[in-house]
Structures are given as structure tokens and as C-alpha cells.
């Protein structure tokens, strides 16, 4: 099965400011792809390019097998899109919104829509403008899942929401989107970590890396080495080791290319006096920080 989303050297510049630079992205079918990166990294711009809201300055993107610039009603009927900064028709009630959208989608499932309204506890007769931010996001998600889209694109959907609402949204999404490809952008890494199958890290408009969550989690380790006396850092410090910190007789660093056999051997080679080595798995948040810092250091170098 071909990738629902694929970009080739996708670039977007606003006047002289590059927002996305030669982005090569491939989202595997059926994956939950987390596009992460700091604020202003180019995540939202990338998604707007994919959705044909913006036009690329150069390069191209394919969405559901169609050039993003030619994305039309046929393709949009198969895509669910929710964004934190989307302007909803605020004068509509939840009920009217769903009734209004129904004729646009041949695959609209009324029972599913009603079920989500109940699950999200959405007040049917209340206008969207009178709903809280969390409720509006729920309404937007319900209206984007009711036609069982093949591709769901979520742009920072959890920003500014409390933990309970986030949980409800994630549950609603995962329960209704089995087998669906999901692209979700966020800098809220904790939620992404809990359900993403793939991660792409974007910074300054460039995709720094992308890989499956499982391999990413195995690749990053927080390493703690204990010595008899404070160690001196060797000149041939491996480039995959970052954020070295020494505190009395303890050295801590992040290994971005962790290997259960190679990493301890390398430590023992560089620090023959090492007394104890401990390698612990890192949460995605810490991995993200490590990547961001490594990116800045390499840019400064």
C-alpha cells in the first residue's frame, strides 16, 4: 500500500523567510505519525501545504496519491482535518454543524456522529461560539471522524487543553480511527509518545530525522557513569554522545546511537577507570530536548 502522504523537497518561503525547506516526508499507511518540533519549526506550514491551504514555493507533496495542489472535494471527503487555529462556523450549533456537513460526505455515518456526540458529552443545541475551547475541539474532531476518513491530519490539537480533555480526545480518536493513517503535529510530546507509531522531528523547516517510535526509544539512552574520582572528558568524545555533565565522580550524557554492546564497550575504552555504567530509557520529551540541543550545537559549530 502506498504512503498516504509523501513530500519531495517541499519548500515554502514567506517573502524571504523560509518556513519549510526541502522537506522529504513519508507517512506510512496505517501509521500514527507524530510530527514534532519546537514552536516555529514549520509543522503547521507543512500541514497547510499538505492540505492545499498554502501552495509550496518549490517541491511537491502527494496526499492520497494526488498532488496537494490539486486536492479537491473528492480527496477532502476522505481526509479529516482538525487544527488548533481553525476558524469554525461559530454561529452553528453542534447539532446543526453535523447536519450541515452530512451532505458533503457520501460516507457520513450518522450513528457514529451521534455516538461521538454522546461520548464527548457535546451539548447539541449550543452554538460553537459558546463552547469552551476543549468542547470546540471535540466538536471539530467529531465532525471530522463521522465519515470514517482514510487520513486524519491533526495540527496541534491538544494545545491549551486540560489533561482530561486531552485524554478524551485521544481516546475518541484512537477508538474511531483504527487502521486509519494519522498525521499529528504537536510539541506536546507526552501525548504523542503514548500513541504515535512514527516520529518525525522538524526544526527550522527541515526534517532532522524520522523513525519508528520503537527504534527511537531504543536508540536514546541516558547514560550515567560512576568513577572513583572526577573524570576528565577525552578529546575524542563521540559525536553521538551529547549533553555531558560531570558532578564530582559522576558523568552523565545522552547517547543518541545506543547499542547495548557497543556503548558500554566504548565507555570502557574511553574511561578505563569507570566503576559503574547505567543506561536508562528516556521519555520522548527528554529525547526531544536532547535533539534540540544537539541541533543547536551543530548549528553553532
Amino acid at each position, binding site marked *: 500500500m502506498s504512503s498516504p502522504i509523501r513530500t519531495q523537497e517541499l519548500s515554502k518561503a514567506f517573502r524571504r523567510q523560509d518556513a519549510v525547506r526541502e522537506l522529504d516526508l513519508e507517512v506510512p499507511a496505517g501509521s500514527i505519525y507524530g510530527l514534532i518540533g519546537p514552536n516555529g519549526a514549520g509543522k503547521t506550514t507543512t500541514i*497547510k501545504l499538505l*492540505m*492545499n*491551504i*498554502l*501552495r509550496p514555493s518549490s517541491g511537491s507533496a502527494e496526499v492520497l496519491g494526488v498532488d496537494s495542489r490539486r486536492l*479537491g*472535494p*473528492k480527496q*477532502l*471527503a476522505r*481526509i479529516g*482535518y482538525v*487544527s488548533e*487555529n*481553525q*476558524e*469554525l*462556523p461559530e*454561529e*452553528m450549533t453542534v447539532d446543526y454543524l453535523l447536519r*450541515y*456537513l452530512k*451532505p*458533503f*460526505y457520501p460516507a457520513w455515518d450518522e450513528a457514529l456522529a451521534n455516538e461521538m456526540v454522546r461520548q464527548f458529552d457535546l451539548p447539541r443545541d449550543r452554538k460553537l461560539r459558546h463552547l469552551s475551547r476543549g468542547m470546540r475541539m471535540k466538536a471539530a474532531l467529531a465532525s471530522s471522524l463521522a465519515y470514517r476518513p482514510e487520513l486524519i491530519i491533526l495540527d496541534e490539537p491538544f494545545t491549551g487543553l486540560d489533561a482530561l480533555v486531552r485524554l478524551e480526545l485521544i481516546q475518541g480518536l484512537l477508538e474511531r480511527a483504527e487502521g486509519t493513517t494519522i498525521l499529528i503535529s504537536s510539541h506536546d510530546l507526552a501525548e504523542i509518545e503514548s500513541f504515535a507509531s512514527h516520529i518525525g522531528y522538524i526544526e527550522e523547516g527541515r526534517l532532522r530525522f524520522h523513525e519508528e517510535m520503537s527504534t527511537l526509544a531504543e536508540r536514546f539512552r541516558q547514560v550515567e557513569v560512576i568513577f572513583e574520582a572526577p573524570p576528565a572528558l577525552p578529546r575524542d568524545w563521540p559525536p553521538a554522545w551529547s549533553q555531558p555533565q560531570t558532578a564530582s565522580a559522576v558523568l552523565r550524557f545522552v547517547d543518541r546511537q545506543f547499542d547495548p554492546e557497543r556503548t558500554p564497550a566504548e565507555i570502557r575504552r574511553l574511561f578505563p577507570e569507570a566503576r559503574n555504567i547505567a543506561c536508562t530509557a528516556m521519555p520522548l520529551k527528554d529525547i526531544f530536548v536532547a535533539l534540540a540541543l544537539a541541533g543547536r550545537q551543530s548549528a553553532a559549530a
Partner: protein
Amino acid sequence: MRQALHIFRKDVRFLWLPMLVVLAMTALFAWSHSADPSTFAKGNARPDELPGMINFLLTMCRWYFIACLIYKEQPAGDCQFWVTRPYSWKSLLAAKALAVVAFINVPFLISDMAILWANGFSPARAAASLLARQIAITAIILLPAAAIAAATRHLAQVAFAGLTLTALYSVAHGAGDLDQSWHRLAWIPTCTAVVVLAGGTFVALIWQFARRRTPITRLVLAGVCGISAAMPMAKPFAGAIALQSLFPAASQSVSAVHLSFAPDSHDPVINGRLAIRIDGLPPATRAVADLVEAVIRGPNGASWRSGWIWSSRPYGNPAPMEWSQPWENGQNPVLYVKINQGVLDRFQSQPVNVRVSLAMTIFRAETTTRMIPDQGNYPIAGLGVCSARSSDAAGSSLLLCRSAEFQSAGFRINGQTAMDASYAPSLAAFEETPVYTSWGVGYLFHQGSPIYLTTERLIAHLRRDLEIPRIRLAEEPSQP
């Protein structure tokens, strides 16, 4: 079509208030123009300003409604809900057009018909005029409003664009001196400006809905508005005169009409004053000069061109050239073209070749009707329903004619010209109401005496050129 109707129903549901306001204002407008125009009949020469104010408010309401309508699914911007939903832009545009037709065009048509009916005219007989008014309002108001709304994000931007456009047209109209420079040809820059504005805004609207390329749409709109507004300032008179001569189709042969040089045999000294006689006019017709141009070619390649000039135009001091309307002398009216001193100084008494070009309008007298002032209405072919009123000014009578269609006929009262007519298509003659009014003042021999109204039909607009070889404009070298 199903999607368009679906969107239309949604718009009606959520825009009922501005729709209601537009309908109410249209009804108020119809009422204000349906009242008996007795204010005029009672000698109040300045019509009541209320209809004009209502019309202004109605125009504002229409702009507001269109902006609200477009903003429901705004093409400009990158955060709109509808952009990521399976809308067909054609259905969306059709839905918006349907709403405009339903809540602006149709009420406007009904309002026009009501005004005609209330003023004693049959709406059915004025179908062509009513259709032209629909085209005009769409071209002048609705399309620009829709295109501007489609390229903006906020009502403040719409208001700013509207004000800028109004200011631009006012300044350009003033700078172009439309009525003074173009005179009887004013319909040409007016119609061209309207066609450019309507065509450009239509293309911009389609482009913006289909592609949502707001910066390009804004550029196109700015260009269209700029070109359209600049139309009166561009003065390609030669082409305009050629165009004018095609309208209306000459109903009588005027091929014999020509110009000849008629120096005064009693005063051979020309001193820059050229007498041009118009010969060959068909019987019962008269010629009125519209624009005149003179070109002087002297020895050694020296030349001077006046450009097309209308007689009443107050040119600089001293004016390079002046001329007067043909002196009506039976079948051979004479036009005087005076080249002024500053130009004469360049050629002195050297023999020069002069070419005089004259754009003129030919009228033919039609029927004469005897009218008694203050004695009711007279239906007069070509003018509509006319009534004569004794004016407060002693010895004069005010003639008022109203018609359901724009009339290109003129008239004379007691043998004197009261109103010259000119050709203009309905688009250029678009006015506030469907009732066209023309008026003129005639002089009475004594109070209560009848007046004789002679209608004049426009026969043709034409241009004639006259070459005058080797004449001396000044017999004596002019003083330095």
C-alpha cells in the same frame, strides 16, 4: 446544484438579519420614488433629497450584506473551516450568486417595477430598460463588492477598499474632467470603465474562489480599479469619435454633409479666425458641433495641433484655440474657429496648411406639440409624458418629461433649443430610478400663452475633415 442549494439554505438561516435589512431598505427606496413627484410640479426645482439618502444607505446595506455573505466561506486567509471540507468552489460561488440574486437583484427588479407602475408606466413595456438596470447594478455595485469581499478578511478592509475606490473614481472623474472634456462622448469612457470594472472584478472573483490566491487577486483588483478609474483621463478622442459615429445607426443619409472654408468676403483679414461652413445637411435637420480639432502645418516642418476641444471648456489663459457653435443660417450653418495669438506668433504671416476636424451631431425636427402650461400631461413620442409649468420666473415655462426608458431625443421650445440629446446606451444612463427625467426651460410670449414643443430626433454622430491649403492666418506680422 444540490450543494449550492444546501449552502444557500445555510446562508439564509444565518444571514436573515442583513437580508431583512436589505429588503426593508429596498422597499423604503421603492416607496420614496413612488410618491407623486408633486414637489417638482409645485415649482420646487430641487427634488427632495430623501430618496438620494435612502439610495446611499441601500447601497451601503447591499455592500454589507455581500461582505457578510462572502465571509461565511471566506476565500482569503488560511484558517477557514470550509477550505478543508469537500466544497466545490463552483457550488459555493453559485450559492453566493443565488443569494445575491434572491435578495438584491430580484427585490431591485420588483422595486423598479413598483416605481414604474406608481409613476404611470407599464413595467412590461420597459423590460429592456429594466434588464439594462439589472446589468448595470451588477456591474457597478455587486461584482466589485463581491470581489473586494473575496479578497479581504475584515469588514474594515471592505470599508477601506470601498472608500478608496470611491475616492479614486471621484478624483479621476475630476481630473479627467469627464463631462467637460468628453462632452457628448462621455458615455464612451463611462461604459469602458464599467466594462473594465465588471469584467476585471468578475475574473478576480472566479480566480479567488477557484484558487484562493489572495495576493494575486488583490493585485488584479487594484489594477482593474486603477485602469477603470483612469479611463476618463485617457483621451483617445479620434477613436472615440469613430466609435460614436456608429451609434445610433444613421436613420437618414448624411453622406452629403461636408465642411467648407468660408472666409468673409467683406473682411479678408483672417487673424486666426476661420469660418467653417457645414454644407449638405438633409432638410429639416440641424448640426451641433461636439468637438473640434485644428492642425496647422507651416513651412520647414513646423506644426501645431490643438487637440480635440469642446467649446465651453475654459482652457488656460490665453486659450490656444476657441470655437463657437455653428451659427444657424438656414441650411448652411457656420462654425468659427479662432486660433489665438500665442499660436499665431509661431507662424506669423507665412502660408500654412490647416486641417480642421469636426465631430458633430445631426438632429432632425420631428413633431411639434402645442402645450398649455399647467394644463395636465402630454404624451409625446420620444420624450415620454411631458408637462409644462409656469415658472416663478416671469415669462418662462418649465418643461418636465418623464419616461420609462432613456431617451436620446432632444427638444426645442418655441423654436429655441431647450435640450440637445446625444446617444448613450442604457448602461451609461444608469440612474437612481427607472424613471428617466428630462427638462428644459422655454420662454413664453406672455403668461398663459401656449408653448410649442418640437421634438428632435438624433440622426447621426459624424466626423468631417477639411483641408485648407496655403492660407495666411495673419496678414500682418504679429507684434512681439
